[in-house]
Every structure is written in C-alpha cells, then in structure tokens.
C-alpha cells in the first residue's frame, strides 16, 4: 500500500507511532449540503478518543464514512494500515471485520438468544450455517461466544431472548458480539445514549477496559460531558463539519467542552 500523507495535526501530535487511523481532506456532501468539510486528523493506537459535537455536526456521518457504510464524497482514510477508500467490495468486507461498531441502538436480532446474537459476530471471519445460529455453531465458536458474554457479565443469560433483556443488557450483548469479531478498532456511536446514567457508565467502563486491557483503539461519540472527560484520552470536537477542537482530555475543562454539547457549538 502506498504510504498515505498524514495530516499535519497528526504529525504534530504523534510522530513516533504509526497512526491507527489517519483522515485527510474528508468531505461528505448530502443533497448539496457539505456535512463534512475537509477533515484532517489522526489517532494513535491503543487510545480512547471522544468525538463530541452538537446534533447535526456530522459525528455519525464521520463514523459511517470511516468504514464506508456512507461513501465519502472526497478525501482519504487510512485505518489499520489499509487505504479504506480504494478497497474493493470483498476487501471492504474483510476490512470491516476488523472494525467493531457499537451502535446507539444495539441492533440485535430480537427473537434470537443472546448467545446466537453473539455468535453472529463470527461472521466477520466465517460464513455458512455454523455462524448463523448457536445450535449450529461448532464447539470452539460457542465457547468463545460464552467467553465474550462472560466478559460483559451476561454468561448466565446466554439462552435468554435478547428482547427479554433490559436496555443495558442488550447493549452489553452487542458489545459481546463486537468482541466476537476480534476487532482491532472500535467505533462507538453514542453507546450510552439510551441507557440510564448507571448503566451508561458501566457500558463506557466496559469499552475503556477493552482499550486499557486489550490495547484496542476506540473512537466514541458521546453526548455526556462526564463520560467524555472520564473515558477518553483525547477529545475531538466537531462543529459545522470541521474539527473545531482537538486536545488531550487532561487539558480539557468542562466549561470549554460544554459549548460542543449544545446548539451554540454547532453555530
């Protein structure tokens, strides 16, 4: 792969470590409106980065563009050593398998058990009936799925239908499914949004644990100021489709961040 030209911000921030994600000149235009306006940033591996911004600032679009669930209009993305923009469909499938996504809505299959839903994560590297339902899965896949469920504290609910679980438990099953992928990078789109404060905190702790213990990289969107400050190493602020804030979390102060959580931040 040709070496990508990294944005100057990334070079200034981390010259010694190969970035796990480098974005250069990324734009996305929807119906004539520029949602993302030439974004440049890079992330170091093994870090938790919070992406903040008001509603409509382009955070979710950015996350989707990174794995081409939404096709960028222009710009370059290098993630996990691959030039994402030029990937062919089958290469894109293999690339996506290495990127775990935690959605605001857990997006589990409601009528299936927690175990079957977690086993779906293995479709990142295995296809066919053995990856579709827990009853057809080989013993080693079932064992790994149970380990993932145990990791999120739900091994005892493996047989429960996911639509019988609480919102927080469903989100944890979604994280277990994501772990089953064996991802190298995690994108999380407001994983704490529909949860009560306590459960939201537990989910964020779980995600940060994956960064600290497993060395995964995390880019997480959150609308909760306290979570942004507590569970990130770095904060990126998006306003009007541009990076308007980029600083280590230790240097952030709550008052300065507050404006990125309200409408004035987007103005």
């Amino acid at each position, binding site marked *: 792969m040709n070496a990508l030209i990294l944005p100057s911000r990334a070079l200034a921030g981390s010259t010694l470590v190969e970035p796990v994600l480098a974005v250069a000149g990324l734009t996305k235009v929807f119906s004539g409106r520029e949602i993302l306006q030439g974004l440049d940033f890079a992330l170091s591996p093994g870090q938790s980065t919070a992406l903040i911004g008001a509603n409509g600032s382009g955070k979710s679009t950015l996350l989707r563009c990174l*794995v081409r*669930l939404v096709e960028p209009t222009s710009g370059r993305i290098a993630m996990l050593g691959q030039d994402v923009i030029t990937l062919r469909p089958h290469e894109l*499938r*293999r*690339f*996506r*398998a290495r*990127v775990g*996504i935690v*959605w605001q*809505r857990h*997006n*589990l*299959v*409601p*009528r*299936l058990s927690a175990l*079957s839903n977690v086993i*779906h*994560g293995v*479709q*990142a590297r295995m*296809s*066919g*009936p053995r*990856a*579709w*339902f827990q009853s057809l899965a080989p013993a080693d896949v079932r064992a790994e799925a149970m380990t993932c469920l145990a990791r999120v504290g739900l091994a005892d609910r493996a047989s429960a239908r996911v639509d019988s679980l609480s919102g927080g438990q469903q989100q944890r099953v*979604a994280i277990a*499914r994501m772990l089953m*992928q064996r991802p190298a990078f995690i994108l999380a789109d407001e994983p704490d949004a529909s949860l009560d404060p306590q459960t939201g905190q537990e989910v964020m702790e779980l995600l940060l644990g994956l960064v600290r213990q497993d060395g995964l990289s995390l880019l997480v969107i959150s609308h909760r100021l306290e979570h942004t400050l507590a569970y990130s190493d770095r904060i990126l602020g998006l306003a009007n489709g541009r990076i308007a804030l980029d600083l280590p979390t230790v240097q952030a102060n709550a008052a300065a961040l507050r404006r990125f959580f309200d409408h004035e931040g987007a103005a």
Partner: protein
Amino acid sequence: MTDATLSPPRFRHLGLPSYVVLLVVLALVVSSVAATAPSADKLVRGITRLFAPSGLFTQMVPPDFSRIEPISWKLLETLQMAVAGCFLGLIFAVPFAILATDRLSPHPVVRSIARAVIALFRTVPDLVWAIIFIIIMGLGPAAGVMAIMVDKIGFAGRFFAEAMEETDPGPQDALRAIGASRLGVIVSSVFPACLPSFTATSLFALEKSVRGSAALGLVGAGGIGVDLKVAFDLFNYDEALAIILLMLALVIAVEQGSGWIRRKLI
C-alpha cells in the same frame, strides 16, 4: 358565540373532480347490478325450483354416504395434493420474495422481474394453472400439485416480500458492518425477524391450498373434485352432497388446526 367556539364543518367540502369520480363509481355500480344481477322474479322462481319435489335440494337430502371409503381415500389425496403443492410453493416463494425485496435484491432490474413473476403467478387463477399443467403433464394429481405450487409462489411470495420489507434494517446493517455475507444477513437477521409473519402466511397458504385443491379436480387435476364432478354429471346429487360435506369437514379441520398452531407459535 365567538368565532373561536365555532365547530368545524360536519362534512369536508368536495371539489368538482371528487363529485365526478363519485358519479362515475355510482354509474358503474348501478349499470353492473342492472346488467348482471338476477331479477327478483327469477330469484323466486329459482328458489321454488330448488325445493320442488324433483328439485336439486330435494334430491340432495339426505346425503348418500354409501361410498364413504373411496371418497375418503380421494379426500386424503386432496389433502396430500394441498400439502405437497403448498410445501413446494412456500419453498420456492422464499427466493422469489428475497429477489423482490428492496433491501435484499441484488439489482433493481432483478427486483422488478421477481415482482412481475410473483404478480403473474398470483393474478392467474389456480384453475387456469391447473388446465395449463394438465396440458403439460396430463390428467391427475401431479398437475394439481403444480397448479397449487405456482399459485402459492404468487401468494406467499408477495407476503414474504412484504414481511421482509417491513423488518427493522438496524440488525441487518449491523451484520453488514461486521462483514457478513448477503446470505448470512438474510438467514441470521431477516428470517428470524420474519418468523411470525412467515408462519402465519404459510398456514393461510395451507388453508387456501386445501380449499383450492378440492376445486382443482373439477378440471381433472386430481383429488375429490373429480368425484364431485362425476356425481353432478350422473345426477347423483345425494352423493354430491356427501362429498361437499366431507370437503367442508376437511377444510374446517385444517382451518382449526392451523389456527391452533398459529396461536401456539406466534
């Protein structure tokens, strides 16, 4: 009373185009009834003939169950035709439905073709399909099974496609984002979500098949309908009534059974 307390008009004001449409519909209804519906005196004469000493009803009652054994075997054949045709139709309806679903079809052209085929299968009556398959395969239950199968592809294909269309796209998107194959997304996400709808449609299809298979014999496609036609042709109206009653019992039994399964599964 102030303007603020005035209630809205009782009827919405209709424009001229609406009145024209109403008038056309009314004219269509009146002309259709006048042209085709039986007159009152014709209806009275018919009912009088029905209950006359040599009338149809008088000759039908009491029903003649003397040939109950061969009729029962034919009834079983009718049920088997319905089950086989329905099963095959449901199996083939699934791929057609997938190809006809917006989110799952590989290409808009493929989707349009699949929808057109489903519409064709659904629009042509099963009796016409039976005649076509009798020409192709000859008289007998095989033609009936094929007719039921094609009819069920049209029936279930449409409802399966609608069910898949209405599923929550979230789980499918999540699996696609993982890198799951198209088939993986369909089987592990779409099918489980559609299971209640698929079950209900399949049971309705079975009921429809049993009702339809009884009539297919009238054109020679096997089953009890053949015996019914023969009974009418030979003026054995009492035996015809026995066949009709047994067909009714079969249809009610299947409907009750499928209703029970539906309540248990869904």
